[in-house]
């Protein structure tokens, strides 16, 4: 036990001595969260649109004014005719064009019906659909307030309550998610090179010749990084609460325990990669291949898992961040406790155990 403690202290010194890497390890999560908290959003803001309006009468002007005053949209001006739309889209300056019928007001009063075409640059399908929905909604509102005669009331009145995030802010969705992803990347990265470095520099022989048992070496490698990563946890959670004002409705203690568990899972994954790789370069490339893109895409951070094809939904279950994401969002936004999150917690615990076990196995092989 004493030699184990000595080993852990030695590992600590190793890390702390390289203060440059240390700064990187604390600065990266902080900078990443601040930067991405502001930039990773998908709501509509000031979407640029243009108008083709051959009639330019009172009604169309009023509609355009109504659209222009929405803070989701930004009026970029009138186009001469419909043949100008394609070049405007190609230059990428506008995302939607509203085309009014000729003699719009006249048709509306005399024919009791007039048409508007909404043409979306749907190369980004999500944005296209959002802008079209926004403009349709505003036009319908306009119609409801300006309809002459008896109001066409709908017989069923729908009252909606948006739970947990009533302003529909994507910050509330993304910042807790980013916490999960950033912790995953930084932790896996930290440990992925540790054992590979010892192999490359030849110091592995010395470690193996020491009275330390493989399990002690493996655990001893994780312990110091566990503390460092925990400081990262505190940094990112403080940023999330102070800069982005993400609500924290659940138990702080539970959050810290779960974060610790997730750290352990990610660090163990890094360690596993490390004991499989012969060089630091391979270790880093593997860590990158396994964690970066799959975590961003399959964890549910940005894209809803329930919309993915079945096989990919299955694949997503092996991504540790997927489970921690449910936990963080659950604790922070919904205020739920372990009685709901026990399944995710158990899965993370199982993964940590499995990764540690496998790296121990891989490590033993190197002994002979």
């Amino acid at each position, binding site marked *: 036990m004493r030699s184990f403690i000595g080993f852990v202290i030695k590992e600590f010194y190793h890390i702390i001595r390289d203060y440059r890497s240390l700064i990187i390890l604390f600065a990266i999560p902080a900078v990443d969260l601040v930067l991405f908290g502001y930039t990773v959003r998908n709501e509509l803001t000031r979407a640029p649109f243009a108008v083709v309006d051959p009639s330019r009468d009172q009604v169309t002007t009023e509609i355009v004014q109504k659209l222009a005053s929405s803070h989701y949209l930004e009026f970029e001006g009138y186009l001469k005719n419909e043949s100008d739309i394609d070049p405007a889209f190609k230059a990428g300056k506008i995302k939607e064009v509203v085309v009014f019928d000729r003699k719009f007001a006249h048709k509306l009063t005399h024919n009791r019906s007039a048409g508007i075409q909404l043409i979306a*640059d749907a190369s980004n399908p*999500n944005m296209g659909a959002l802008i079209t929905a926004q403009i349709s909604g505003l036009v319908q509102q306009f119609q409801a307030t300006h309809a002459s005669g008896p109001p066409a009331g709908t017989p069923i009145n729908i009252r909606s309550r948006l739970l947990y995030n009533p302003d529909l802010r994507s910050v509330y969705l993304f910042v807790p998610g980013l916490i999960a992803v950033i912790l995953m990347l930084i932790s896996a990265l930290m440990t992925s090179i540790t054992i590979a470095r010892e192999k490359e520099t030849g110091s592995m022989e010395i470690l193996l010749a020491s009275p330390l048992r493989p399990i002690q070496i493996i655990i001893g490698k994780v312990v110091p990084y566990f503390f460092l990563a925990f400081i990262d946890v505190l940094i990112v959670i403080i940023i999330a609460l102070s800069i982005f004002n993400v609500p924290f409705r659940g138990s702080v203690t539970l959050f810290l325990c779960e974060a610790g568990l997730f750290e352990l899972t990610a660090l163990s994954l890094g360690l596993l990669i490390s004991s499989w790789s012969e060089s630091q370069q391979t270790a880093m490339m593997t860590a990158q291949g396994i964690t970066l893109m799959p975590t961003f895409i399959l964890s549910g951070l940005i894209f809803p898992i329930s919309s993915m094809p079945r096989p990919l939904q299955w694949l997503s279950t092996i991504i540790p961040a997927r489970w921690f994401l449910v936990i963080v969002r659950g604790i922070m936004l919904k205020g739920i406790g372990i009685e709901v999150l026990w399944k995710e917690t158990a899965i993370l615990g199982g993964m940590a155990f499995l990764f540690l076990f496998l790296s121990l196995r891989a490590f033993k092989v190197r002994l002979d």
Partner: protein
Amino acid sequence: MTTMITLIPLLQLVILANAITFEVKNIQLYVVDQDQSQVSQQLISQFQHSDYFTMSGWSSQVSQGKKAIQDDKANLAMVIPHYFQRDLITQKHASLQLLINAVDGSAASVSQTYTSAIINNFASRLTRASGAVNISTGHIGLDNHNWYNPQLKYSIYMVPGLLVLLVTMVELFMAGMNITREKELGTIEQLNITPIKRYQFISGKLLPFWIIGMAEMAVGLFVGWLVYALPFVGHLWLIFAGSAIYLLVMLGLGLLISTVTETQQQAMFVGWFLMVVFLLMSGLFTPIESMPLWAQHITIGNPVAQFIEIMRNVLMKGSNLRDLWFQFTDLSIMAVTVNALAVIRYRKTHA
């Protein structure tokens, strides 16, 4: 190593592009039916027949509905109150309540829209059936068109961007570690005493990676066309011209990293950090237009953002050089700056 570097990106391209969609499907609906009348039954069956909804449960207690949302068993709970049918028949008007899990705001508003559409549809059929004539004066008809991607397929929007990213990862890391490796191994000394000129050395280092990158781009485009039916609306030469300049930027950046770092580990840390920043601020996953203005200005210095813009606009809309002159100029300026810096730095450390 080489096979890993070239195969993993392609594999990721083929698999991961499928996962990317904002489309909202399989909305889990929980029904709280306190009325239990004929009308409420009819309304519920409307949802059962919709492709967008899956029934997650049924109860007559509102608290059960709330619990289902809390436990992530349901995205949405519809509460049909007591006397729903009676009010609808006698007063021609009734209310119902939707409880929506809004943690994912954009998915929540989409499910709200779908649900309201089904309910309104049902309501208007009820009114028609009851003989009440709904005269709305001055109807404005809306007609929607989705250009360039009429089926709103997410994959053809994502594949060009993913391809850029995967090529970038390979190039940035390979180039980034190349000179650092020579430094670590000590072979850089041997190269320094050969009569080779510095620019010759730098371009000699760049050229093989540049060729690999162009080849990878070509293969990736082919795979995209084969697997995802990627549209090729614009000129292919524009794509390759863009790639040629873009690869110079990324390789130059890699070389710059390797001139300022001493070990492969440091080089990889820096490369990794740059990669994540480039990735999340590139507009690949979340649109640049949704960012605050200051962040939108920062993306002018992000080569990944500029090249993704070129790829998407040329492939999907058929934009030409005149439309994209800004992106091309921006990339060219970056290419010259970064490579000049790399050459200068290289001279400094070894003069």
